[in-house]
């Protein structure tokens, strides 16, 4: 655990407290059962915004607390532990885009609404099945944006889209020329393909050429934080299970083969935490963001992949049942692993950043 400021300690404890009490995995089950396309509980998100979580990276001038990404990551991690379904990450990513590239007018118009939770926003980049920023076809002419975006997170709840076009990022409000096709993935959360047919678009003029890359790096560290919470939760649940489950007249936790496997996973989890926290801190400091964010997401992918699989294996039969939670983490894990860059995409990026 990184060394935290007092505010951060408080924030994390508040988030942990709320997630465990108000938003345990049972809440996600309700969301799933309700089967609404937006796939989150509006009241829950309102409560989060109420606590200021939607504005953590937003300047006070715009209604946020300006605590920064490490702080946002602490909250996201706690919510990840209980698989809390919400557009918090998506909206925070969108907010970071407006912060980096928006004009004063755009900031003044949108950031307060995002911070208050009034507006849900999300980033739309991918156009195919894999993360590939080089293949963007979406284009804008005369303030009208046209193109197709694929598998957009939280698309149903969002009323504002930050859309990547050939020549930069644009703000598009839900409305005329914006049509969604639901894409239900294993995580049972909100994903959709979005058809933009000449939708009114306003460019984010700031942020320079690296804007998209910078925003994606922020998406990476925030997703990595959610993944960290998920990995921690699976690890903890599994450890508890091994300590109480008896087989061959022995508590499972006493089998050395399982002890050593857990030791490996613990080492992986430790590595993951170091990488993810450093990624969040890098965004706050502004130094070596690209590299740190790449490492953070790559490690998050590697470790959560392993832990989500071992979580099932070590739980044995019951881990295979829908009645048990561990499977939900597996089904969310792969979606996040594929988001904002798969492992091989990130390793390629790391090599490029390292000059080989």
């Amino acid at each position, binding site marked *: 655990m990184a060394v935290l400021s007092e505010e951060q300690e408080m924030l994390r404890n508040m988030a942990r407290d709320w997630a465990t009490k108000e938003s345990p995995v049972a809440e996600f089950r309700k969301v799933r059962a309700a089967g609404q396309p937006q796939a989150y509980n509006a009241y829950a998100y309102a409560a989060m915004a109420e606590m200021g979580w939607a504005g953590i990276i937003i300047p006070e001038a715009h209604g946020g607390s300006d605590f920064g990404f490490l702080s946002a990551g602490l909250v996201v991690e706690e919510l990840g532990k209980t698989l809390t379904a919400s557009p918090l990450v998506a909206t925070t990513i969108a907010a970071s885009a407006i912060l980096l590239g928006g004009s004063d007018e755009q900031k003044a118009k949108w950031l307060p609404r995002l911070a208050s939770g009034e507006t849900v926003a999300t980033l739309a980049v991918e156009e195919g099945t894999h993360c590939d920023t080089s293949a963007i076809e979406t284009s804008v002419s005369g303030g009208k944006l046209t193109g197709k975006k694929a598998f957009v997170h939280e698309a149903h709840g969002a009323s504002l889209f930050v859309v990547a076009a050939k020549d930069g990022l644009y703000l598009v409000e839900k409305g005329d020329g914006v049509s969604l096709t639901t894409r239900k993935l294993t995580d049972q959360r909100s994903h959709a393909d979005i058809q933009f047919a000449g939708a009114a678009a306003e460019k984010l003029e700031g942020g320079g050429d690296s804007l998209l890359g910078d925003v994606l790096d922020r998406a990476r560290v925030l997703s990595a934080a959610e993944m960290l919470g998920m990995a921690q939760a699976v690890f903890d649940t599994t450890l508890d299970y091994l300590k109480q489950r008896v087989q061959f007249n022995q508590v499972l936790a006493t089998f050395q*083969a399982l002890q050593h496997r857990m030791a490996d996973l613990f080492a992986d989890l430790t590595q993951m935490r170091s990488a993810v926290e450093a990624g969040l801190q890098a965004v706050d400091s502004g130094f070596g963001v690209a590299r740190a964010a790449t490492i953070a997401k790559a490690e998050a992918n590697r470790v959560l992949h392993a832990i989500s699989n071992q979580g099932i294996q070590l739980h044995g039969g019951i881990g295979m049942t829908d009645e048990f939670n561990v499977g939900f983490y597996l089904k969310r894990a792969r*979606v996040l692993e594929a988001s904002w860059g798969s492992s091989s995409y990130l390793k390629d990026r790391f090599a490029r950043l390292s000059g080989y």
Partner: protein
Amino acid sequence: MATQLESDDQTSEDAFRTEVRQFLATNFPDELRCTGNMLAGLDGPTDENPVQKKWREAVGGRGWGTPTWPKEYGGGGLTKGQTRIIEHEFAKVGAYNPIGGMGVMMFGPTLLEYGDERQKLEHIPPICRGEIRWCQGYSEPNAGSDLANLQTFAVDKGDHYLVNGQKTWTSGGQWADKCFAIVRTDRSDKHKGISFMLIDMDAPGVEVRPITMISGTSPFCETFFTDVKVPKENLVGKEGQGWTIGKRLLQHERTNISGGGRLAGMMGQSLGDIAKKYCETGGDGALVNKVLRDKIADLEIRWNSFLLTARRAVEESKAQGGVSEISSVLKKVGTKLAQDRSELLIEIRGFQGLGWEGDEFGDDELEDVRGWLFGKAATIYGGSTEVQNNIIAKRVLGMLDHQ
């Protein structure tokens, strides 16, 4: 002389091949070509349309669904050579074997080995005709890998047993007619206190609750026995012999889970060919993503040596008689490779390979996602990988017990 024999075999084989072809020409309906589900090994719902029924009866009538089983019990009574001919000719016209399920894969072979004449005559023929579905009553909530720790108890009531207890992971329990179960008849000895008996699923006191899996499917059930009467003639082998019989049956399961047609089928299509549909290829037709390509080749190479190992296991079993030691390796390696393949398939397809439902996803894509999730069970059931490792270390490598 040897050559003389061979040529005789040759002629008889040719004759048989012709017979099979004629059979297929007359009985196999075109509309069933290349249908028949991958998971035939796993008992699914009993919905069967008239055409499928007719095909099942045709194959079952000949006993060709269980080609090597003795004719007197409804099997084909055929040689391994003839069996290969059937598989080959069926495959050529895209015909599937309609006779499957646990009865064929596990219970049949075991009953043929341990059952008495009356039991064989009663239970084997319907299996050969695919009329009766069997399920497995083994696992219990508090006996996962530690199977012998089972508590379901059968009290001796003279002409019958009175069975009480709970089983879980009863695959296909909701569709099964009968259940082969291991139950406790004696609490004084963990292993020798177990007996193997056959229970009617429609007998009073049998209750079944499907279990929903992470894949969304419910192939397994919890099965509750409350004062269920089981006639003595349904005891297989002697009282207390259940552990021996039950374990023998698991060996069949293992071979089926790993080497079995199901897995071979799953691996049917080359990942490379699938990848070419989803990922960019260069002028040479090779995948542009060399890292992904390397991973695919790595998996397929290991898969190939697995198939070679499976073949070797069969040859060894034939040579030495009985199930080969390698069979524990097969289960361990085969299930792991199948899981690796499912994961790689997701990597190949990206988000398109993570669909839960919806028309934008192909049936193959959705099926593979469910297969990926359900496949996580392959390293858990039928003797978990951890149990396989214990078996290999202790029985095969002679490493002493750690307790």
